């Protein structure tokens, strides 16, 4: 009995929701990712750290189907997948919020929520179907409510919103449609303290909605606040991981910057 229970819990732990094995990506002569492996556990909020140009964005673009890796395999819930386009990743339940948010300034919140996947009637007409605006509007408001994102109005054009509101909309959109995984690239980099806290709360609460998260950030304080684990990249190489805590703060920094700081600390080399 005891042993069996241990076995199942062991199993669950060992089938990560997402696993990347030996991923390599080159841009011409630039080796942006060098044999990187990574695993994301179910219900985990994982930080991806690294200095500018470390390869973080490249990694998540490979995970969201924007780039195709030169080598390496991706497993979603234990099954190997190939992601040839952003659509394929989305259909598998993985949503990505890019640094530029991919929002449409000329659309309101509802239009942005459903951009590219507007429900139509009758369905078989596809692109020539009638957009179900009422349905979209009530569903989007429902999602925003359940994520506790309050906006002045869902009918306001995104172009009229502040950076924090825009980030909140993009994150909420990903959280509502990403059934399994949401990936965020520097969600707080352009935000002030007050606006950051709202987005951080969304990320922290994501596991409650059944969503696992990968978040890229340069802000270690934010990472410590919301992430369970941090993986560090440097010049395309995975150099280590650590639990993001105040005690590990310096260790993480030295992993990120490497070189002298690292030697001084006597950290292990990649």
């Amino acid at each position, binding site marked *: 009995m005891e042993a069996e229970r241990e076995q199942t819990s062991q199993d669950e732990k060992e089938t990560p929701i997402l696993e990347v094995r030996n991923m390599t990506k080159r841009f011409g002569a630039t080796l942006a990712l060098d044999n990187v492996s990574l695993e994301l556990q179910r219900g985990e909020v994982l930080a991806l750290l690294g200095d500018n140009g470390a390869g973080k964005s490249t990694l998540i673009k490979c995970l969201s189907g924007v780039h195709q890796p030169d080598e390496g395999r991706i497993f979603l819930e234990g099954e190997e997948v190939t992601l040839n386009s*952003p659509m394929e990743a989305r259909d598998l339940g993985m949503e990505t919020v890019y640094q530029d948010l991919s929002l449409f300034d000329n*659309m309101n919140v509802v239009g942005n929520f459903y951009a*590219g996947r*507007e429900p139509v009637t009758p369905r078989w007409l596809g692109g020539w179907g*009638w957009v179900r605006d009422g349905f979209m509007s009530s569903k989007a408001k429902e999602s925003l409510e359940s994520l506790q994102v*309050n906006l002045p109005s869902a009918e306001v054009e995104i172009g009229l*919103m502040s950076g924090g509101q825009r980030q909140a909309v993009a994150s909420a959109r990903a959280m509502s449609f990403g059934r399994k995984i949401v990936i965020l690239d520097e969600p707080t980099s352009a935000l002030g303290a007050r606006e950051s806290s*709202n987005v951080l709360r969304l990320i922290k609460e994501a596991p409650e909605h059944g969503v696992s998260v990968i978040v890229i950030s340069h802000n270690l304080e934010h990472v410590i606040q919301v992430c369970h684990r941090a993986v560090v990249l440097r010049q395309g190489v995975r150099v280590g991981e650590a639990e993001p805590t105040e005690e590990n703060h310096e260790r993480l920094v030295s992993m990120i910057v490497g070189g002298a700081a690292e030697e001084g600390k006597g950290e292990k080399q990649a």
Partner: protein
Amino acid sequence: MSAFMERITGSQSPLSSERSLRWSLALIRLGPAIILLLLIMAFNVLSPVFLTVQNVSNIVVQTSALAVLAIGQLFVILVAGIDLSVGSVLALSTVIGALVFTWNQGLGGSLSVAAFLLTGLVTGFLNGFMLTKGRLPHAFIPTLAMFYAASGLALVLSNGRAIPHVPGIVITLGSGYIGPLPVPVLLVAGLALVAVVLTKRLKWGRWIYLVGGDKEAARRVGIPVDRVILSVFLISGLMAGFAGVITAGRTASGYPTAGELAELQAIAAVIIGGGSFFGGRGSVAGVLVGALILGVIANGLNLLNVDEYWQLIVAGGIIVFAVELDVLRRYLEGRFRTLQARGD
């Protein structure tokens, strides 16, 4: 928790300036309609015949070909493109339509009508294909090439002469009446209605706005951007074919120099009507207002015996004014954003 959002929704301090910003933005949106109204009022004062039924009917009939071209142009400008070829394509469609009618007069001339429209569709397809597959930097290039090529082909096919042979149905569409209503105006209304449904209600139309809003983001959310772009050029070409029908119907002939400068007028109508050259903004209603503004200026100045060339100068002034409104809109939106971010 989301106190900052609530503070914005609440009816507190920042709202006075927020409200005035909202008002200014709404006013800018109504800008074209206000210009049109002011023009009508001014001409009404200056000329006793301006607002007579006969003259108003003249204005809308004379504007109908332009309105159709402008509706087509709107779709292209919505994706931040431009179609410089529509005037030449209009001419080419009248020539080909008239030639087809001289060869084959069967089926009540419907082959000829099909030839008008097909000419538009084919040239539109070529424009869109060259742009998306040929990876040309901007819609300016393929449509400029088509502007020359279509015009040249029209001159070659017609030997540079008018072809006074168009079917009765084309004449009806261009200059007929149903009761008191001019047929070309009904045609414009029908096409405008379809365009309104497409832009406001159908998914494909929504995607046109999304592609115009941000091409890269549209690609990321899975919109077939190249096909959307191709489709707007097909629409623009088809509209040039319809405009060709109206023009040939009014002159009862196909002629290779029809539609001269019409592409620029169509672009002007879109811009004056609130379409944004940055893409993603503009409406069918606005475009119709834009076309009417141009029509009213031409007609009104004519009635006042003002030299024809002055019309061009006035139109130029209004274009600058309209684009400045667009620039002002962007500025005010920026201010609005800052206000939202501060939240207090």
